[in-house]
């Protein structure tokens, strides 16, 4: 300062301005500092977290709840609602079906960012601690990329997952699971069978969440019980009921075992469906009815038939009434072929474009009415070639055709003329190279 005074006459205007701005900024920063300190002291008289009341964690000394006026990183805007408003009646609910910006995203981002793990596998910021792979309960959050599409098989899994353009943003490796490495898949399956084996065995299974089932053919408690009660009503004794259930269980366990040893070969083993003596719940219970009519190992062709029949039987007899808001009460029975129920055609008929991508998939052809998840029940006889990724639902359409592409490691390819198997004597040159379909195996 003295220097200034002494040399005042020779100070240029520029340096004067400089000095002024410097002092100004100094005073401003002091001002802010004072402000912050004051606010800090106001809320944390004793314990001072360096984030003060902006800390995302709840401190036990903190009296108020976490009010986070800061905008969350994902552009949802600032959170001004009370954080623990469970019912969220006061906040603007974003319309779940017309997603846009979240004016009042009901659940605090802050809570989710807490990464403490607990016993229940919480703590990962986003989903999927659920795979058998390493990230059980407590893996740290990966970098969040909001709309990055990590789903590499969207074309094949289109029907099952959300639209490929807006894939769920998955962070952990489990969600990214690509079935390119059979070893990795096998490891996951082995781990699951070891650690994640539920007590109820009659279930479908997928080694990775969001992937369609590796093993299909769910039987629920109530279905099994309903069949048992029905049998009992008809006079079947308990012992036979128990035995039937046991054999069902065993065939399902065999399925799991074969998956464990060969994750990419989708056996067309039709064992999945519960073995109900068919008349029981009437033919209208498709999975129950199918099973017992089939011999234990049936070719893909063989299973197709009864499934088709059953599929038809389940069509409702009564035409629906036309009533608002259902604009197109089209009959559910649409296509002759539909292995999966004619959901796809029904959708395309209505003309509305539902948001699921499954429908664009289906609209490709009326023949290939393979809405993705529906076909999972029939993936048994869809042959996946090793070059294809697991689950091979991209062959969905192909799966509907009886002649499947031959591939190594698959037992029940039905290619070519079946009559060759019926011949007594083969001439050189016409001996088939693949194994016979099981219907020819005595």
């Amino acid at each position, binding site marked *: 300062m003295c220097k200034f005074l002494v040399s005042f006459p020779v100070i240029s205007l520029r340096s004067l301005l400089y000095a002024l701005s410097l002092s100004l900024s100094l005073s401003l920063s002091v001002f802010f500092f004072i402000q912050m300190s004051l606010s800090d002291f106001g809320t944390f008289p004793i314990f001072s977290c360096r984030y003060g009341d902006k800390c995302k*964690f*709840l*401190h036990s000394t903190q009296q108020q709840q976490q009010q986070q006026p800061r905008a969350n990183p*994902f552009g949802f805007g600032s959170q001004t609602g009370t954080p*623990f408003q*469970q*019912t969220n009646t006061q906040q603007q*609910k974003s319309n779940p079906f017309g*997603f846009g910006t979240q004016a009042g995203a009901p*659940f605090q981002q802050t*809570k*989710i960012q*807490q990464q*403490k793990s607990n016993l*229940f*596998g*919480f703590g990962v910021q986003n*989903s999927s*601690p*659920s795979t058998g792979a390493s990230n059980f*309960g407590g893996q740290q959050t990966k970098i969040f990329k909001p709309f990055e599409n990590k789903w590499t098989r969207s074309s094949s899994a289109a029907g099952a*997952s*959300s639209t490929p353009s807006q894939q769920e*943003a998955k962070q952990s490796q489990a969600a990214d699971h690509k079935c390119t490495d059979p070893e990795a898949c096998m490891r996951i399956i082995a781990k699951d069978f070891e650690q994640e*084996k*539920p007590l*109820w065995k009659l*279930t*479908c299974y997928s*080694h*990775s*969440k969001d*992937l369609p089932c590796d093993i299909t053919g*769910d039987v629920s408690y109530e*279905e099994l*019980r*309903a069949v*048992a009660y029905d049998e009992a009503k008809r006079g079947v004794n308990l012992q036979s*009921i*128990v035995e039937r259930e046991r054999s069902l269980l065993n065939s399902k366990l065999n399925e799991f075992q074969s998956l464990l040893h060969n994750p990419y070969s989708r056996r067309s083993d039709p064992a999945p469906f519960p073995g109900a003596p068919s008349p029981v*719940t009437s033919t*209208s*219970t498709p999975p*129950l009815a199918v099973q017992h009519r089939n011999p234990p190992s049936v070719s893909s062709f063989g299973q197709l038939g009864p499934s088709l029949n059953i599929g038809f*039987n389940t069509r*409702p007899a*009564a035409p*629906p009434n036309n*009533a608002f*808001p*259902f604009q197109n009460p089209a009959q559910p029975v649409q296509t002759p072929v539909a292995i999966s*129920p004619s*959901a796809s055609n*029904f959708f395309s008929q*209505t003309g509305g474009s*539902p948001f*699921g991508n499954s429908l664009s998939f289906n609209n490709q052809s009326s023949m290939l009415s393979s809405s*993705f998840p529906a076909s*999972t*029940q029939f993936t048994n006889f869809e042959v996946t070639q090793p070059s294809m990724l697991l689950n091979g639902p991209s062959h969905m359409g192909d799966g509907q055709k009886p002649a499947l592409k031959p591939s190594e490691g698959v037992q029940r390819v039905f290619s070519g003329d079946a009559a060759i198997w019926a011949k007594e004597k083969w001439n050189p040159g016409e001996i088939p190279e693949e194994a016979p379909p099981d219907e020819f195996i005595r």
Partner: protein
Amino acid sequence: MSTFGSPANTNPNKSYEVVQPPSDGVSSLSFSPKANHLIATSWDNQVRCWEIMQSGANFNSTPKAAIAHDNPVLCSAWKDDGTTVFSGGCDKQAKMWNLLSNQSMQVAAHDAPIKDMAWIPEMSLLVTGSWDKTLRYWDTRQPNPVHVQQLPERCYALSVRYPLMVVGTADRNLIIFNLQTPQNEFKRIVSPLKFQTRCIAAFPDQQGFLVGSIEGRVGVHHLDDGQQNKNFTFKCHREGNEIYSVNSLNFHPVHGTFATAGSDGAFNFWDKDSKQRLKAMTRCSQPIPCGTFNSDGSIYAYAVCYDWSKGAENHNPATAKTYIYLHQALESEVKGKPRLVTQTRK
């Protein structure tokens, strides 16, 4: 008659035992939206109604009425005015039971047993989901469904919070509907859980849903693509190496927390926002196939009976006993809590 252990085993939580329980397993429980009337559907083909009186921690139950189906009854729903009960099951029918007049009539038909149903007041329709792979919407005044919706597989569970409806089917399909355009599937996804879907509960604020499976796990799933980072799953109802299924998911009507009930005979209360378990109750000696809150969330009713989780061979009709218990849901158990952190920063 009951030799299955002392009563304490089936009721270690000292809940109130509802009088005159069904003679066979309970498949669903639901409270009236208007009063403390409890409906239980059972494998003994009956739908029963009790009136529940509560004063503080004390309960009283009075059997009121019952109707019968021809086959086991699997699901029930109340009409929003609290006068009428819908029930459906293995007889492939749904019945509408007017409690005031004590008259019942058939209002729905499927080709296979009806597994789950819901009354949608905003549409004045009953929706039923069946193992015949369809959802059907019923105007109770007409014999034919207003709409038939094909599902990819057998319906295992459904949950409605208008306009959101989530349907879980076999083979891990989850289908989401916007009931404003119910003939279109809004979205169809594969379950975030690896095994069979067992139960579903839509968030009260319709932002997403819970899905429970047989593998002792619950998935929390949000609908908005932008909220996918909030999705997670958690393990529950496991004991050592034994992994039981989650049979029932029920949101508390006020606090937005939820209860799970499992085949291990336990029921727990959870807060998904703070990702905590609020309360773990003691295991009963038999599975809990279903549970429900009453309209103000002060009572959690649950059934303790065999759920077939170990097949027919573990069902002994001679000695099997069914209980329905009422648990007073204390605020400390069902009100959400912020998550505390230690003082030291990481």
